[in-house]
């Protein structure tokens, strides 16, 4: 694995909105490179442009200006259907409120993204079972979301995000709706994914979470004001320990 391999390049990204007759920039002149196996926290106060950046990175939205290359492809110029394909193949979403399909079982929820890729049902089931086992929910596959605890729901969402083996995992306040002990569990799971080579981007306003990430990107008023490497993070220590062993 080459740690310097670039996955995402953002160049002069701007997102302009009109609010009535007045326009404003939610993002302005963002330049950012994200590498394979990066473990990034995007922080910033409310209105700083975190969510807008998240939506752009997740290919849910187009930038008004600038260039967004995902694995070399300029996604800012793709049509809606191609963008849907990119979301399906390259991006795994994890939301604050889990966003599971309420009537579908855990297994069906995890199988869902594979439908849009045309994976036949048997393979879909098998891959979803593997993903659920990976997050420790092998015994809860037939439960619907409201039969699961918050932590379990978020694990289902993580399994769903992972089942397509995406290039990046985008988590928007993933622990925002969880209690502190569950937060620790979920973060441990993220750490493990990072160790396994997954690229993770987490939008958060919790310092604790940001501290665990390797890189912390801070936004303010739509501009990137700092991009710091977090050398003291637990995960870095763990990695060093791992490489020393």
């Amino acid at each position, binding site marked *: 694995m080459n740690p310097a391999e670039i996955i995402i390049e953002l160049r002069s990204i701007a997102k302009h909105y009109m609010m009535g007759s007045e326009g404003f920039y939610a993002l302005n002149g963002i330049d950012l490179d994200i590498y394979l196996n990066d473990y990034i926290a995007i922080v910033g106060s409310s209105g700083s442009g975190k969510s807008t950046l998240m*939506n752009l990175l*997740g290919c*849910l*939205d187009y930038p008004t200006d600038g260039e967004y290359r995902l694995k070399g492809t300029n996604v800012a110029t793709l049509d*809606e*259907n191609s963008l*849907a*394909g990119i*979301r*399906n*193949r390259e991006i795994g*979403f994890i*939301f604050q409120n889990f*966003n*599971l*399909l*309420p*009537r*579908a079982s855990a297994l069906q929820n995890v199988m*869902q*993204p594979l*439908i*849009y*890729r*045309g994976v036949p049902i048997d393979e879909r089931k098998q891959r979803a079972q593997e993903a659920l086992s990976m997050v420790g929910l092998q015994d809860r596959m037939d439960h619907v979301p409201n039969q699961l605890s918050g932590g379990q729901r978020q694990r289902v969402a993580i399994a*769903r995000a992972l089942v*397509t083996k995406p290039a990046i995992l985008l988590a928007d306040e993933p622990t925002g709706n969880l209690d502190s002990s569950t937060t620790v569990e979920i973060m441990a799971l993220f750490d493990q994914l990072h160790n396994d080579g997954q690229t993770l981007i987490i939008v958060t306003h919790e310092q604790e979470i940001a501290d665990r990430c390797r890189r912390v990107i801070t936004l303010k008023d739509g501009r990137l004001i700092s991009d710091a490497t977090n050398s003291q993070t637990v995960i870095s220590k763990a990695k060093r320990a791992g490489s020393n062993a």
Partner: protein
Amino acid sequence: MPSLAFKIIEGTRSAGQSIFAHGFRSFLTTLGIIIGVASVIAVVSVVQGFSASISQEFDGMGTNVINIDSYTPRKARLQGVNAKLSYDDFLEIKHRVKGISNVTPTVRVWGPNAVISYRGQSADTMVIGTASTYQKLYTVYPDFGRFFNSSDDKSRRRVAVLGPSILNKVDIKGDPIGQYLSVSGEWFKIIGIAEKRGKLLGFDQDDFILLPYSTTRALLGGADEPDISISLQVDDMQNMGQIKQHLKNLLRRNHKLNKETADDFKIATADQMLDTFNQIIGSTTLVLGGIVGISLLVGGIGIMNIMLVSVTERTREIGIQKALGATRFDILLQFLIEAVFLCLLGGLIGLLLGFGAGSLISTVTDLPAATVPMWAVVLSFGFSAGIGLIFGIIPASKAANLDPIDALRYE
């Protein structure tokens, strides 16, 4: 990219799950379609059953049969004119027109002259005075005994062939053949019982008594010559047109009609009568179909309404699906399939209910057995699917065009 077939299969699976997850609501949604299709099928099955049995009747008559009846236009009738076909007309036709056979005069008598009595019991019926050739023309075969022959007619024998319903009206002890019963005060010997034909539209086709023409004529007395019908068979169908023309000319001459006067008779072939009948059935079906079509339309609007509610309710789900990689087309297809699925389900239930209702109507009333023609099945399914497509497209495109970010934020 997944194939369209794959998408349709997955769409159907998801539509099925969604429909059965909201079972009661789905049932109410599709109720309009159920009622619509059920009424179409019930109406069509009864009308078609009726039509099939009528066609059978006509088949028994043969397509080479011509019927001639007197005809008085309404206006003339109001002025007291009554056209008449006479026995002379019959004789003229029989002897002058070539290429025809079994020329049969028929006189039908109701009322006081058609009262039968047997050992103190009496009943009303219809007396049909006709020639022995009637049997060949209308394929009337006696179940018991025999039909009267030409010598019975010539010598004005007092013999009678009974419709089987007569036996229900008067209680004849022992074998009826050879016994006597009175018609309008005159005694007749029963020589045959016709085979049963059943009821048609509540009208008993077996309630009649057949007498030789000349005997009937005598029974009626000589005061006024009765108005008769004349039926005949054309030997070669190719001559049908020519023979009709010949009959027309002959009757016009006989009735001394000048060029300005319209025919005072009607020449009808079995085919023509069948055509007329089919036209009536066709327009009845069309009108009834139109009325129930409106109910299907209302059903469709109901489906659209619920689908629109459902799209709003599932906005967030749609957002999730889009985030997971669903394209506009995937979402469009999913909702469209759901609408069509609902309608087809309604169509199927309606079809079964409609056929059940049609059969029930036929059983309870005296209408012929209900039949559902294939075209009605195909049409109602096609129509249901069409309604699903038409009324599903608006909600489906509303769903497909949702912006994923807005949809994900929707509370």
